[in-house]
């Protein structure tokens, strides 16, 4: 039929360009605004106050990670640390002991110990040993950890390499140091991967050094005063 030989006229979409571009612009601008708002307040200060951070303890991996306290405690404090870090020592031997008495021993909170080993080779050595102690002697883990921080000296000050950690481990009651040493040797690669994963996870939440904490929906950057921790914890109870 003759009409079949007549090519159909090309459709003109040019009148759609403007509305399409406006819609696209709206989507792009909206995305910036949404992402921007979601990130507001997520940047930690340089250890000078508790920021209102867009983090959530529910997003922190806690399974298989060393902890103290009631596993079903209503509050969780995730704590990233380096065994060579002086502020971690200060926190562990001072503030944390007060928090333990007030919240951990009363079943209100558990403290989850995450690695953030970055200061030196000794940092990683200690973190690896910590993993092995937790795997083999979880009931003695906290005592071992406290002993490690009590023994902390200056970076490369003598304590912190494997022979000194072995000697310290032998001094902690209830731990078979030789078994821990063997565990370290056999699981080294696995432990290193876990330690690295802890640090990467912390970094992804905005932890920018040690110590760093997340509890509830608050990121606490640094060894802040006890009152700052209590306020963050009490708000969840």
């Amino acid at each position, binding site marked *: 039929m003759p009409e079949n030989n007549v090519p159909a006229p090309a459709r003109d979409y040019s009148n759609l360009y403007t509305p399409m571009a406006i819609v696209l*612009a709206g989507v792009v601008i909206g995305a910036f605004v949404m992402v921007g708002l979601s990130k507001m307040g997520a940047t930690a200060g340089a*250890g000078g106050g508790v920021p209102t951070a867009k983090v959530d303890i529910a997003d922190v991996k806690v399974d298989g990670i060393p902890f103290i306290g009631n596993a079903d405690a209503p509050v969780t404090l995730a704590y990233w640390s380096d065994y060579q870090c002086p502020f971690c020592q200060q926190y562990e031997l001072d503030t944390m002991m007060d928090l333990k008495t007030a919240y951990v021993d009363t079943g209100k909170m558990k403290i989850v110990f995450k690695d953030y080993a970055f200061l030196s080779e000794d*940092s990683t050595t200690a973190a690896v040993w910590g993993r092995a102690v937790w795997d083999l002697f979880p009931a003695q883990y906290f005592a071992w950890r406290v002993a490690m921080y009590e023994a902390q000296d200056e970076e490369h000050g003598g304590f912190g390499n494997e022979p000194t950690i072995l000697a310290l481990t032998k001094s902690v009651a209830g731990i078979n140091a030789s078994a821990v040493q063997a565990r370290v040797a056999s699981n080294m690669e696995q432990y290193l991967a876990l330690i690295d994963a802890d640090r990467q996870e912390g970094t992804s939440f905005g932890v920018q050094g040690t110590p760093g904490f997340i509890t509830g929906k608050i990121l606490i950057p640094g060894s802040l005063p006890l009152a700052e921790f209590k306020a963050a914890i009490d708000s969840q109870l």
Partner: protein
Amino acid sequence: MSRNEKLFWGTFTALIVVGFVAAVVYRVKNPTVSSNISTIGATLADPAGLPGLLTSNAPWTSNSETISERMDAISMPKLSMEGAVMHIHQQLNIFVDGANVPVPANIGIAGFFSPVHTHDTTGVVHVEAPFVAKFTLGHFFDIWGVRFTQDCIGSYCASESKPLRLYINGTLFSGDYRTVELKAHDVYALVYGTLPQSIPSTFAFPAGY
């Protein structure tokens, strides 16, 4: 160009501009680990007037009694953490008339940490900050509280017979001493007067540094 084409390209260009502006606003309001440039103070041209500034003969203490005031004066944050975003080390040697002057431990540590500090007497300078910034040799000496200018270190000021020289990794440096940026594994030798037997150009930094 048809009217529709003009409208399309005009809107497209506006979209790019709006997107760029939005991106800039977002980045400024939401600095990330990789782009977070701190607002530390610029290196002072002259440290004269800094609280507790030592202009005495060597050796010098860590001078921590007045560090808090100096940190405020140079807009340096007082940290309650060991920052991991910037984590580099250098080594500093000071010589006065050929004799080594010790760099004390705990410079920049007094209940808080300066992002630039020392832990021991090896001369290793630690830069550990939860942000990225340009830290300089001038910053280090201002935190320490020892007078350091193009011509003077402590009480020792350059003369024709006793110049003050700075070597970086063994090479004589001819620029502005105070604004030298602290870079990973750089070795500095600040030499007043008679040259030492050798100028340090390398240092065996511990593993992980």
